[in-house]
């Protein structure tokens, strides 16, 4: 018998790799610009003809290559970017796989001109598929120029699959814009044929965004600045006014690399849930910086998908940073900050889900003012001292703190009063929890409370939905409590519901359910989340299945189920019994990220101001 297994010739291997790396002209632009950036270029020009099919020409002022490097550069698995396996675990450059140029050379005619600063003379390489590359000396500027001509001319099938020029050009433009945004301190010049699309000189981040994405963004960008031990988040999110019906205007960069990530995306959408309609998409440009060791970028040749060590921290950090910014900039409704600010005591809050390390933070609950952690810690130890040093903040002449410190009393014993109202810097605002006095209860749904001069009417059903939804979300992947049953419930379900159940069973399990699908019509319910009351098990499970049945189940199943479960439980919530229970309930509500709206956008708190009430009697 003859042998059937051959080692592929290198050229074929490159063409196969090209299928993954070089899918369209845009991929070439992306790979080459990444190379330029990795070569420390500060100026990069991109010239495109015929949407990149005829020519992609990249010029940079980077380090350039020696003759030997140039020769190696087009070989597969040749890279200047990693040397050891350890490097692979800690990738700081854009490229690293060493397959881009080799792949491109297998599907196009490529010419590279390059010169290193110290060399007097540069080198030119001309490569054509199936031919040996020719290298000869050339006079050129420092840096590298690459011409990619007639892309895919030898792969007709792939050429055929390219979209219209307009579409392909848009892909390219989008990629160039992403580079321009994330590398705002570099110059980017972009031409279509001879026509200058833009020439962006080094600038501030904000200016670069406005110059690339449009002037209408002015006044609608909300800065995000956040860091914890794990990562740093900076950038901008948009007000609701600039949310769009499409998902354009969403940019996410991880260590400079443009990525897509469901978890982060979902965190952002969750923050906007109460302020945007379902069909609107928020604007965001976020730069995440994280220790390269904690993220794997090598899961896809195009490298736009990444895998984090800990998705949950990422989710929580993004969530928290954005909520903070939204609250600071009054995008999320709030009890009037600046009137109330003066009058509420500080409260200690254990920030549970946001900070994995469970830091105590001090929060002025009504204003959301978060007090610097270090300061609060120091003063926590020395309760006699002045709680917050006045000089840390600028004085605001408008109002001053009055002596109303009962909650503070409870938490810290002796009252230490902040005498001066601070000029709140945006970064210092976070959560909100007024000191609330329960007035009465219109069972089972409405709770009446007094917060300073405002009458709050709290819809306890919607509030329960909010509280439970967040509990479920926070305990995802951590500790869900599962109540087992002595006698599993056997249940008959229609086939299509069983099919739905099969799709969501994993997530149900993560929530605390345990369901064994016995056949196409029967299931056995073995355990339930411990929040479900006896007697409600089947109805709630059915409601979840019915809800999910009518949705396209693709992503965020856990969250969708959590929401439905929270809603179902909220509807079945028994009345609050004691005053203590009511107080705890309200406190709990105010530990959530958004005590004003339920995740399904129901109003939780209606605020009646004293003046509103006056109006009723006018």
């Amino acid at each position, binding site marked *: 018998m003859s042998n059937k297994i051959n080692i592929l010739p290198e050229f074929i291997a490159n063409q196969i790799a090209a299928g993954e790396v070089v899918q369209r002209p845009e991929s070439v632009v992306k790979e080459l610009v990444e190379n330029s950036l990795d070569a420390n270029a500060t100026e990069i020009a991109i010239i495109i003809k015929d949407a990149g099919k005829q020519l992609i020409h990249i010029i940079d002022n980077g380090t350039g290559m020696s003759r030997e490097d140039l020769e190696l550069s087009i070989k597969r698995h040749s890279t200047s970017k990693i040397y050891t396996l350890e490097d692979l675990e800690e990738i700081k450059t854009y490229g690293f796989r060493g397959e881009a140029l080799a792949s491109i050379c297998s599907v196009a005619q490529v010419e590279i001109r390059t010169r290193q600063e110290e060399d007097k003379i540069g080198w030119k390489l001309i490569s054509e598929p199936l031919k040996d590359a020719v290298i000869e000396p050339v006079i050129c500027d420092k840096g590298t120029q690459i011409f990619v001509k007639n892309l895919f001319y030898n792969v007709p099938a792939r050429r055929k699959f390219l979209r219209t020029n307009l579409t392909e050009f848009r892909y390219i433009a989008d990629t160039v814009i992403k580079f321009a945004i994330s590398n705002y301190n570099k110059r980017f010049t972009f031409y279509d044929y001879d026509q200058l699309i833009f020439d962006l000189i080094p600038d501030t981040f904000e200016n670069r965004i406005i110059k690339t994405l449009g002037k209408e963004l002015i006044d609608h960008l909300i800065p995000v600045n956040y860091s914890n031990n794990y990562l740093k988040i900076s950038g901008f999110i948009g007000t609701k006014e600039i949310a769009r019906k499409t998902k354009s205007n969403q940019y996410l960069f991880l260590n400079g690399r443009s990525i897509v990530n469901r978890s982060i995306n979902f965190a952002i959408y969750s923050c906007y849930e109460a302020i945007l309609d379902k069909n609107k998409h928020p604007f965001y440009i976020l730069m995440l910086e994280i220790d390269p060791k904690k993220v794997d970028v090598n899961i896809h040749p195009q490298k736009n998908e990444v895998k984090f060590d800990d998705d949950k921290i990422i989710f929580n950090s993004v969530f928290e940073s954005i909520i903070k910014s939204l609250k600071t900039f009054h995008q999320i409704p709030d009890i009037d900050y600046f009137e109330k600010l003066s009058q509420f005591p500080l409260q200690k809050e254990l920030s549970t889900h946001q900070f994995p390390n469970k830091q105590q933070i001090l929060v002025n609950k009504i204003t959301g003012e978060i007090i610097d952690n270090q300061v609060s810690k120091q003063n926590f130890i020395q309760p006699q001292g002045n709680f917050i040093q006045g000089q840390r903040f600028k004085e605001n002449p408008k109002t001053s703190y009055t002596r109303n410190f009962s909650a503070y009393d409870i938490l810290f014993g002796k009252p230490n009063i902040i005498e001066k109202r601070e000029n709140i810097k945006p970064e210092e605002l976070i959560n909100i929890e007024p000191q609330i006095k329960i007035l009465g209860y219109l069972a089972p749904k409405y709770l009446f409370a007094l917060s300073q001069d405002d009458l709050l009417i709290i819809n306890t059903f919607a509030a329960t939905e909010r509280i439970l939804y967040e509990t479920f979300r926070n305990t995802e992947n951590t*500790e869900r409590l599962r109540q087992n049953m002595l*006698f599993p419930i056997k249940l008959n379900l229609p086939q299509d519901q069983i099919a739905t159940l099969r799709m969501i069973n994993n997530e149900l399990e993560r929530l605390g359910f345990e369901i064994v699908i016995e056949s196409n019509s029967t299931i056995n319910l073995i355990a339930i989340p*411990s929040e479900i009351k006896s*007697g409600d*098990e089947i109805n709630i499970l059915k409601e979840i299945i019915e809800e999910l049945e009518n949705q396209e189940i693709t992503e965020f199943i856990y969250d969708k189920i959590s929401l439905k479960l929270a809603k179902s439980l909220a509807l079945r919530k028994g009345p609050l019994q004691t005053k203590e229970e009511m107080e705890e309930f309200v406190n*709990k509500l105010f530990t959530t990220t958004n005590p004003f709206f339920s995740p399904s956008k129901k109003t939780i708190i209606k605020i009646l101001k004293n003046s509103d009430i006056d109006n009723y009697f006018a």
Partner: protein
Amino acid sequence: MKFKVPMNEMQSLLQKVMPAIPPKATLPILEHLHFSAEHGKLRAIATDQDITIIVTINVETEHEGSVLVPGRRFEQIIKLQDPSAILEFTVDVENLDIKLFTGTGKYIIKGLNVDEYLDIPELFKAEKPDIEKLISGNFKAGAKAIFSKEEAKFLSSKTVFAVSEDEYRPAMTGVLFQFRNEYVKAVATDSYRLVIAKSGESESQYPDNLDIILPKRTVELLKKIDERIEITTLETNDRITHIRFDVDNTIFISKIIDERFPPYETVIPLENKYYLQVSQKELIKAINRVSIQANTFSKHVKLSISKNQLVVSGRDEDMGTTGDETISCEFNGDTFETGFNFKFLLEAVQNIEIDEKSDDIITIMFSEPIKPVLIKSNPASDDLVMLLMPVRIN
């Protein structure tokens, strides 16, 4: 219709029949008491169709007859009367006005014709209410049993709290009574806990191999009876449909739940390697204290057990609150950790009756972390056994 009766006797009659009057009847006619007086006796019937209560007392009859009395209003009036008074009860044949003379007072309420009284279809297959048939014993009676004094009270009060609310599993919405010649067992479960109360009194009488599930409401009524009870099953087409309790001058008929009770014996762990012995009072205190700190929705408390010490803890991740109570105990293993819904745990522990031998100490028996635990007054006792399903952490 006219009769006279001491007020206190009418008051006690109402106490007995009124529980069968539903708080909000679907049929207004059910809010009425069926009164009939003849041969010096007054018979009062109340029913909500599931439960029927019939009480007979001696009265001084002047004119025989029958009438439907608006139950709640009549009760309100009678309740406030002087017990030593004599009640004169007269019905105007023309318009069915009921006139009540109490010696000091005179009240008129509106009665209805007894022909309007509801058929009780499950009980009486006849077209018209055939209460007579029941009273005369002219039906097919099945097995007979006798509960000695306080036996019904013990069996029902120890089990009824664990009954399920799950309408999908009707068998579990009642208490199973298992008669086994020498003893009777009452069993209730909502699938998260299970309780078995057992009784075998010498003056009682139990049929052989009879299993009956009684609805929760019926068992609630049995809880209040501390008299000797005669029990008869009522059959239709050779199938038990109802059960009749005879207590003193009261007949109490309830429908049964004709379903199969889950095979509870199979879930009782046979081998329980670990025994935790702890003071009931201390444990109740500890649970009550830490449950304040537990999450109000999940109601979870954790038990961390080591040789001589039991830590009960409650915490709420959302609020960042925790509470721990440490109590001394005796444990035959090294360490064991488990968790429960604190409400269930508390009810189970409180439900255990300590016998003299046990001296406030209860025994909690474990096999494996996800198997149910057994709670008893002492390991050997099987008068009262609680099974509790732990809450697992995912």
